[in-house]
């Protein structure tokens, strides 16, 4: 299934604003992050497991176990710093 992945702030600068990814049905947000890490050295660095990053599925904050439904809009970004 296809999902749209969006990046913000420092991740957007490293990886571009968005990309479309082919993902196995039933995958979690954590599995998607792992797949992206394996997809290129740039992704491996930007999304490395040691980095403090957050993720969202369909514009709701998620974690590694969040399910990613077909056609979902997923996003990865650094810790938020508004306010």
């Amino acid at each position, binding site marked *: 299934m296809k999902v749209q992945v969006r990046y*913000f702030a420092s991740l957007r600068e490293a990886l571009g604003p968005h990309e479309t990814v082919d993902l196995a049905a039933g995958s979690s947000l954590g599995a998607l992050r792992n797949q992206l890490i394996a997809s290129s050295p740039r992704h491996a660095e930007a999304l490395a497991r040691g980095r403090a990053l*957050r993720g969202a599925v369909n514009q709701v904050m998620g974690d590694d176990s969040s399910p990613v439904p077909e056609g979902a809009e997923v996003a990865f970004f650094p810790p938020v710093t508004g306010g």
Partner: protein
Amino acid sequence: MADMPQPQAARVSIHSHDFDLGAEVATLRAGDAGVGAVASFIGTVRDRHGGAAAEVSAMELEHYPGMTEKSIEAMIDEAIARFDIRAARVVHRVGLLMPGDQIVLVAVASAHRGQAFQACEFLMDYLKTQAPFWKKETTADGAHWVDARVADDAALARWGIQADNATGRPA
């Protein structure tokens, strides 16, 4: 048409232009004689980074359009569930800002002051760690993304909500 329900004023606005506290509070209170207290908070751009001497010459604010509004609407729903308040308003600017500029407004109306103060602080603590905004500061060293603070996660924890923003909730 006096008995027609009043159109609901917008609760959340994200835009690049400035906001006016007096006008925002007037709209928040309009038509509700049950309001006896309004508490507001305004965040502004500091001219220095942390405690360091590095002077900030500009700040760029990025956000996640759509999710920003949705997440703050959910925070206001949560504030209404937790506190006895009558109305709440959040305005957050994005784009290029200068030292001294206003960044964010949270205003809450209630019957008595206690709930307005508390809900205002709750909304601000929530927004700091859960609304998708990112600040990039420009100093003499160049532009750099601002780091999230563990203290902001601790502020939200006082309300019984675990944040894990600064450490990055495993994504």
